[in-house]
């Protein structure tokens, strides 16, 4: 047969279906011709031969179709293989190019990773906590009910059970109301000491009212609320997980509470954390006198609106009821008002402004990251112009060129994206570990897919878009000038301008974040500077409830003495004091009482002012480091049979006895009971009671010996490093009081630190963002200076040839860097002045326009810009002018 002589496939253009059909026909035609010739040779006539040839062929049409189909399939597969081959080529080439520019690749990947990862992490946390709707049933129908007593100087406070009963009985706007009482038990077990568990005692229908039904088992039955009913409890989700290993069989089983069995009837959902986290829920049992107790305001109330009722209507009705109660019970309710707060606001309210700030920070960093990537790619575009010009001159198709450009950007984007995803997961874990415990629904946070995709998409889009920059000109890429002019094309100048804008924007955004963080830092430091009024270092606290095991006052006093002696016997302990309420303590018992100065006209009912009452041991003030301002402190002589004595705080002295010496005055107030008369023997210094930004309040103190209380907190002062002593102290306590549960144990410094947890969290996060933003912006400045210097090598060489010294050149470059950052700084300052006012709620005694903060940070950024310009400056100064001019 003859030799085939066709071009190899590689250089053929794509084969069209029409061509395929034509080829198939040719092939069949050839066959038929040969067959006809053969038949003619065998003796047929041409017409017969033709007919028989066709007959011998078989199904002509079907075969034709089948052949074409098979050929088309084969062509498609070959084309796909070719395409993949080209793509692989592009990617390999891109990979090689990137390896030759490791710095560029690393910075681009890092920028993308941070922009995607860090942002997704914080966005996930913020979104989960703020923006997702609460999983409660119809939370918009739920209200949290508070008492408000302007006379007692409180914005909002917990409710008293008697008031709750009145509201519940009289209000019509609600479908149901529930009361929540802080409670606690000892979880006892045969092995090991008892553990104190916190519980919410809830009234009937609580879970339905709040809209959080148990995820396992059931809520309480009405009969379980009866006084003598066998105990039933519902586990919190956390307790179920941690203590019972998420075992569903615990439902229906029993646990031991206070040495008595209690049936577990259900498990609460994990996101139920109102009013706060807890270990258990138990059915509240009403004591008979609770229904009329309008004084003990320490419970929480929630209510669900009835059909058709609005929060405004409910508030109005409650106001009316409060007014009637004020008239009916002037002794307790004269100034008591009611406030109904929408549940969502209640749960999220404190957190929302802070999280909004964080979201803005996230947006900024994403923008900066994208700007940086864009800037980097624009720089790269200049390098690639020459390469692309060569390829185009060699005949590469436009689409192929574009695909090659995209390949490099895509490779960067993919690697950066993968790194970003990894960073996102790690970041979420880190944030959850660092965050304050009262951030709502923290344990259900995970990486939010939507945000991840959003950040990925944004970054990738930026990467790809700016990677296409060289090809994004109006018509075909300019082939000649890149080959000729070594980068100083018109396009290069354009790009420089765009990059200046990008980097300027980065600097501005970074500065805004920085100022935000700076204001928070200043707030924090101002807060820390606050005088506590006591000395927190080297003190540990142990809170115990002695009633159960020590029913009589004498027994309690004995037990307290035994524990105190045991503590004092521990090496390293200097002194021990006792109080019922320690500053900053989360479960301090600080009831209030009206105070009347003997011999003064009794104020009209309703105008009395209240004081906080605390029971202390004589050593308490010395141990806490609270100074005595006048008179004397308590001593051993102030026993139960001695005259009743009291101490008051400076704030109380100022309020009740501003013009005279308080020492010696007789006052009437009640400490957990009916009012009695006490003689003031001294005045002690003010302390900050609850948080670093809380104001001192009027307080009275009475001796423990004269009011034997069962709920006490021991304060142990150690010579140093009290944390190391805590295990020993615990053992001593159990030795002196067997089976006694320690309800709460902490160092005083720990208590203070705990109240700062939320602020610290915000500070850390915003601080982290600012650092990231600043780093990225600095890199952006550095990159841009380097680039613009590379464009000016000619100019610099000429200068140097004309006698400019290295120092002058360096100065010029550094000045350039600073000038580059200047518009960004200006823009950033203005933006910060406008935006920081939304942070006001998070700041403490610091104005959002605090000039010191602004000034310091502006200087910092200027310095950083100078530093960023330093390396390029040195490089510029070390240019060999002769060589540079030759290379141009």
């Amino acid at each position, binding site marked *: 047969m003859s030799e085939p002589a066709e071009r190899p496939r590689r250089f053929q253009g794509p084969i069209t279906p029409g061509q395929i059909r034509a080829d198939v026909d040719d092939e069949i035609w050839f066959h038929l011709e040969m*067959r006809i010739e053969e038949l003619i040779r065998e003796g047929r006539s041409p017409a017969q031969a033709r007919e028989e040839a066709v007959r011998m062929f*078989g199904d002509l049409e*079907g075969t034709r179709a089948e052949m074409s189909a098979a050929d088309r399939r084969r062509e498609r597969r070959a084309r796909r293989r070719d395409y993949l081959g080209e793509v692989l080529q592009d990617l390999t080439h891109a990979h090689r190019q990137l390896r030759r520019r490791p710095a560029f690749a690393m910075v681009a990947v890092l920028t993308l990773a941070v922009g995607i990862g860090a942002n997704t992490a914080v966005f996930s946390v913020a979104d989960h906590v703020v923006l997702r709707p609460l999983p409660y049933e119809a939370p918009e129908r739920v209200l949290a009910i508070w008492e408000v007593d302007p006379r007692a100087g409180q914005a909002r406070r917990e409710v008293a059970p008697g008031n709750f009963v009145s509201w519940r009985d009289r209000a019509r706007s609600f479908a149901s109301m529930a009361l929540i009482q802080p409670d606690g038990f000892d979880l006892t077990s045969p092995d090991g000491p008892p553990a104190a568990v916190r519980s919410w005692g809830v009234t009937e229908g609580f879970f339905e009212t709040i809209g959080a039904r148990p995820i396992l088992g059931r809520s309480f039955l009405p009969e379980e609320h009866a006084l003598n009913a066998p105990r039933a409890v519902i586990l919190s989700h956390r307790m179920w997980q941690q203590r019972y290993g998420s075992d569903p069989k615990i439902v229906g089983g029993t646990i031991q509470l206070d040495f008595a069995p209690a049936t577990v009837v259900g498990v609460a959902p994990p996101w139920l954390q109102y009013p706060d986290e807890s270990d258990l829920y138990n059915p509240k049992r009403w004591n008979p006198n609770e229904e009329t107790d309008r004084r003990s305001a320490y419970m929480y109330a929630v209510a669900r609106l009835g059909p058709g009722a609005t929060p405004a209507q409910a508030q109005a009705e409650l106001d009316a009821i409060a007014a009637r109660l004020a008239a009916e019970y002037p002794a307790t309710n004269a100034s008591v008002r009611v406030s109904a707060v929408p549940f969502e606001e209640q749960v999220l309210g404190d957190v929302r402004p802070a999280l909004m700030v964080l979201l803005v920070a996230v947006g900024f960093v994403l923008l900066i990251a994208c700007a940086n990537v864009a800037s980097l790619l624009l720089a790269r575009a200049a390098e690639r112009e020459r390469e692309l010009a060569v390829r185009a001159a060699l005949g590469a198709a436009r689409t192929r060129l574009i695909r090659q450009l995209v390949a490099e950007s895509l490779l960067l984007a993919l690697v950066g994206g993968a790194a970003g995803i990894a960073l996102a997961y790690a970041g979420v874990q880190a944030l959850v570990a660092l965050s304050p415990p009262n951030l709502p629904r923290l344990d259900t946070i995970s990486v939010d897919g939507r945000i991840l995709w959003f950040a990925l998409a944004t970054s990738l889009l930026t990467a790809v878009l700016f990677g296409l920059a060289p090809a994004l000109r109006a018509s075909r890429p300019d082939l000649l000038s890149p080959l000729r002019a070594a980068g100083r094309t018109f396009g290069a100048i354009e790009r420089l301008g765009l990059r200046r804008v990008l980097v300027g924007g980065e600097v501005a955004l970074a500065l805004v974040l920085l100022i935000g963080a700076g204001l928070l830092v200043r707030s924090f430091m101002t807060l820390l500077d606050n005088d506590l009024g006591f000395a927190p270092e080297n003190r540990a606290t142990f809170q115990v409830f002695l009633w159960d095991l020590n029913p009589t006052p004498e027994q309690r006093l004995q037990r307290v003495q035994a524990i105190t002696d045991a503590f004092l016997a521990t090496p390293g302990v200097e002194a021990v004091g006792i109080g019922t309420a320690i500053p900053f303590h989360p479960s301090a018992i600080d009831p209030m009482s009206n105070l009347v100065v003997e011999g003064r006209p009794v104020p009209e009912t309703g105008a009395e002012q209240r004081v906080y009452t605390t029971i202390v041991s004589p050593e308490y003030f010395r141990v806490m480091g609270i100074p005595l301002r006048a008179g004397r402190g308590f001593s051993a002589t102030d026993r139960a049979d001695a005259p009743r004595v009291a101490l008051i705080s400076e704030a109380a002295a100022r309020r009740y006895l501003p013009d005279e010496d308080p020492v010696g005055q007789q006052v009437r107030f009640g400490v957990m009971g009916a009012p009695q008369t006490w003689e003031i023997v001294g005045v002690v210094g003010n302390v900050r009671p609850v948080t670093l930004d809380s104001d001192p309040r009027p307080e009275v103190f009475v001796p423990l010996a004269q009011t034997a209380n069962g709920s006490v907190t021991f304060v142990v002062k150690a010579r140093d490093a009290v944390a190391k002593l805590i295990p020993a102290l615990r053992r001593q306590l159990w030795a002196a009081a067997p089976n006694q549960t320690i309800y709460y144990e902490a160092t005083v410094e720990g208590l203070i630190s705990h109240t700062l947890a939320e602020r610290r969290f915000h500070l850390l996060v915003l601080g982290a963002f600012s650092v990231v933003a600043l780093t990225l912006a600095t890199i952006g400045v550095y990159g841009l200076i380097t680039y613009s210097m590379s464009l000016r090598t000619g100019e610099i060489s000429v200068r140097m040839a004309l006698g400019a010294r290295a120092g002058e050149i360096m100065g010029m470059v550094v000045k350039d860097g600073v000038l580059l950052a200047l518009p960004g700084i200006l823009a950033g300052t203005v933006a910060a002045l406008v935006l920081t006012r939304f942070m006001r709620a998070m700041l403490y005694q610091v104005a959002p326009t605090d000039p010191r903060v602004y000034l310091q940070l502006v200087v910092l950024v200027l310095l950083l810009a100078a530093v960023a310009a330093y390396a390029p400056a040195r490089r510029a100064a070390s240019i060999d002018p002769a060589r540079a001019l030759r290379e141009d």
Partner: protein
Amino acid sequence: MPRSPVGQGAGGSQEGYYIRFLAKDPEGIPVADSLQLLRGTLDILILKTLAGSRLHGYAIASRIAARTRGALAIEDGALYQSLHRMAERGWVEAEWGHGETGKRARFYQLTEAGRRQLRVETANWLRYAEAVFRVLQPDAA
């Protein structure tokens, strides 16, 4: 192209091919008959014919007919469908050239994969034939 007056659709993946087995009756007169054989058999015949050669479709058909001494005459349409399918599977590759008439003709040759396929299929077929033969032969010792 003139339409064929005879024949079923010879395409489709489930149908076999028609190979006209020219049986002869006791007087030696050929009796037209049709025998459905598996596509695989047609493939292997083509592959074997192509072994070591570069042929166009007509030549393949002629050679098979000559080799079987006229006993097997493959339907041309089936042959070409098989050729194109094997080209799609990568067992043969085709190039255009010029045939005896001077017109364009498509020449086929085996690929490495095709050679492998031929070896495997030949072994299978021989084993199969041997098994059938053993059944049909009178019992030997």
